[in-house]
């Protein structure tokens, strides 16, 4: 965990309005990065104090040999827009790695990933890790329309990529969570990241369709965050084991442990 200045080396538009931002990062940070972890990016010049707080972004990918890290940035609200407006060659002030990681159980062979919107990012990193371990991965991604989906070229070829759109312009016509029941008997573990309503419907379909506690579900939650290191206690998640920080104890939690 450290602060570092990266240099932006590439910008690639994805999902309609978002950008994959690639920047240089220290080797030890890149080697340590695991799916689910995140970095906090300063959304301003250092000597200008607005917007004040860093913004959290899941690691989308790392290329340790090239010294590069990629994050997925949606230019919504104050901060996100400033970051995507940075030009190639400019500096980016990053703090990381932060947070825990998705945990693939030793005996799991079938992994189901359920993503919504920019929730696609940590799951893509996880899918790459799983494929490298020769595990079977099905990646369900939901979006408002075809243009807001992640291009199939971003997904490793070994992954079964299934999409859902709310307007029916690609794949299944409806919510991505509607697809989940079909995979619950197959999956050893489910990993999810997306907006709050997606988690609510995911939880409903899982509770209604699974047998006992299998498969387990790990969710990566998003909270407004100030420090990123467990000091301010601003980003809490209420769990059955008490209040937990989403920045250090999370962002990945067992769905069954969270008080929804």
């Amino acid at each position, binding site marked *: 965990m450290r602060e570092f200045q990266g240099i932006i080396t590439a910008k690639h538009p994805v999902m309609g309005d978002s950008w994959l931002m690639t920047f240089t990062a220290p080797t030890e940070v890149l080697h340590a990065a695991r799916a689910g972890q995140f970095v906090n990016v300063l959304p301003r010049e250092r000597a200008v104090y607005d917007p*004040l707080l860093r913004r959290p972004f899941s690691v989308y990918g790392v290329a340790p040999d090239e010294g590069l890290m990629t994050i997925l940035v949606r230019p919504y609200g104050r901060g996100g827009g400033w970051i995507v407006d940075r030009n190639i060659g400019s500096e980016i002030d990053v703090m990381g790695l932060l947070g825990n990681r998705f945990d693939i159980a030793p005996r799991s062979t079938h992994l189901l990933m359920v993503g919504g919107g920019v929730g696609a990012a940590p799951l893509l990193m996880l899918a790459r890790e799983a494929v490298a371990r020769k595990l079977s991965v099905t990646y369900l991604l939901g979006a408002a329309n075809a243009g807001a989906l992640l291009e199939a070229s971003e997904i490793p070829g070994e992954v079964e990529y299934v999409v859902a759109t709310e307007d029916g312009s690609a794949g299944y016509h409806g919510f991505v969570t509607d697809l989940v029941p079909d995979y619950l008997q197959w999956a050893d573990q489910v990993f999810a990241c997306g907006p709050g309503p997606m988690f609510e419907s995911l939880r409903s379909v899982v509770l209604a369709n699974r047998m006992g506690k299998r498969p387990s579900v790990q969710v990566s939650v998003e909270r407004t965050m100030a*420090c990123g*290191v467990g000091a301010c206690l*601003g980003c809490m998640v209420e769990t059955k084991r008490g209040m937990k920080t989403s920045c250090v104890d999370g962002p990945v939690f067992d769905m069954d442990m969270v008080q929804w």
Partner: protein
Amino acid sequence: MVTVEKQQYMADLTVDLAPSNPRELVLRNPVIPASGCFGYGLEYSPMIDVQRLGAFVCKGITPKVRSGNPMPRITETPSGMLNAIGLQNPGIDGFIRKYPPTWEHWRVPAIVNISAESVEDYAMMARKLDDVAGIAGIEVNISCPNIEAGGFCFGWDARMSETVTQAVRKATTLPVIVKLSPGALDIMEIASAVEGAGADAVSLINTLVGMTIDPRTRRSKIANLTGGLSGPAVKPVAVRMVYQVASVVKIPVVGMGGISGVQDALEFFMAGASAVQVGTAVFSTPSMLTRLIDELGMWLDSNGCTSLNGIVGAANPAFGTRGESTF
């Protein structure tokens, strides 16, 4: 090979925040992370050399364990933020078991921030902390509601502030810093009252009570409805109050409120602060804390000051020709 850290400046940055207390509170430098923004000192250890700091103030401790407020607890505002964490902490007994045994082996002095809702509870906590190894001082947060006085904030009333300070003073020989509330009508009256009641120092300002509403949900962005405003947005208010308080008390003043760099810190010193606390800025740039020490020392060097005392109160006529001011 042991690497010896090379100091980048010549100026003497040491300061004693409890000069009339035999137990004294001598700081190697005047840079202190503020309560609530630095956890218990351990959280930032992977990122900065915590031992280089002048001191640190831990999160607010209460008589009993508190799980804090519902979410959301924080929201960003123009050049600032609102927080309503709700003093989440393990309670005084859990705290004493958990943290001081580690701090005992640290070079950096640890100051414990305490909050309570009755005079007796403040005194009880001070008594329990009095002989705990690893604790260098107490910061008394008087921006709490006094349950025995209908929930009126201790720190907004000179008599209640005085009573709390006296009770804590009697309960411990540790250096006592009273943290003042900017909500007080006349902060100079409060500062004089706590000085008379035996405080070794005062620190200010605590956060300003604020609110922000999301037009989409038609609700406050903070579950607690109101929160404490901090960050660069509050700095001019803080400098003004430090200037006022430093004009009327003889005890050391610890200034804070929106400090994000050396230029901000200099304003507080020149207003009359002997030390500064840094809060919100730590969140976005933790490395700023240690950089601030170096930049302060180098600023003094290049401005002909051999010690910090050369600038304390430089902008405040109440300090007269104190120290070695070159201004």
